[in-house]
């Protein structure tokens, strides 16, 4: 792209923009999506392949994330809560994107509230999921 006119103004970038909820959920959507597509996908496939491989390979998978008594270890909690929070955040911002695709929700106040709502919903859904697992 050497032929591009260097005198053209550059678009404002992160260094001079004030952070807002809409920017935050936009980058969260990309970050959570990329995280799940790499770490999440590999762990899901490891789980499936380990389960198909037999009791020994499944034990290796389970032991990586649990302590002797069967509860989750530190890595298990980081990965477990990280992936569920990522899933719900990506799901909520995904729904927001589908609404924005229709042309709705671009008024400043509505847009900001929608962005905040995705983060509130994802934290609540993650808490609900782990509470249900815990008390069941």
């Amino acid at each position, binding site marked *: *792209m050497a*032929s591009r006119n260097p005198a053209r103004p550059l678009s404002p970038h992160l260094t001079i923009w004030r952070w807002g909820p809409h920017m935050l959920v936009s980058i969260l959507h*990309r970050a959570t*999506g*990329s995280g*799940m*597509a790499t770490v999440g*996908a*590999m762990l*899901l*496939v490891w789980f*499936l*392949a380990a*389960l*198909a*491989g*037999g*009791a020994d390979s*499944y*034990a290796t998978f*389970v032991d990586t994330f649990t302590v002797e008594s069967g509860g989750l270890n530190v890595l298990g909690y980081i990965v477990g809560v990280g992936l*569920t929070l990522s*899933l719900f955040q990506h*799901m909520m911002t*995904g*729904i927001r*994107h*589908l609404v924005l*695709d229709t042309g709705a929700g671009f008024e400043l106040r509505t847009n900001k509230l929608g962005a905040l709502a995705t983060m509130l919903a994802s934290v609540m859904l993650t808490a609900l*999921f782990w509470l*249900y*697992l815990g008390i*069941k």
Partner: protein
Amino acid sequence: MRSGTSLGRVRGLGSSKEGAHHWWQQRLTAGSNFLLMLWLVVSIARQPAFDYASMRFWLSSAWVALPMTLLILSVFWHFRMGLQVVIEDYQHDESRVVALVLLNFFVVALGATAIFSILRIAFGAAA
């Protein structure tokens, strides 16, 4: 690229006619991902135990193996397109081509392993 006028540089190149197709498939798989991931989250949450025998029994059911296979297809196609956009946004030279090729290899190899594993359990092959 030849160094003519601005108009000359863009004339004839146009769009590759694939943008709308990509955009629509991303939305379509977003919808199917939403339904399938909701199913998976509820199904996992309702699992009584996560030991080897319980999980084999769970995945050997057609009511789990089939939605799980659909989930792999839908989710993997969705994230292949998503990561493609991320790569196209940040890689501008030859590394873009390399990254896109590696992305395709990654998705196909991982997806095939997942589906093979599901079917192996569902069709009752001994471990």
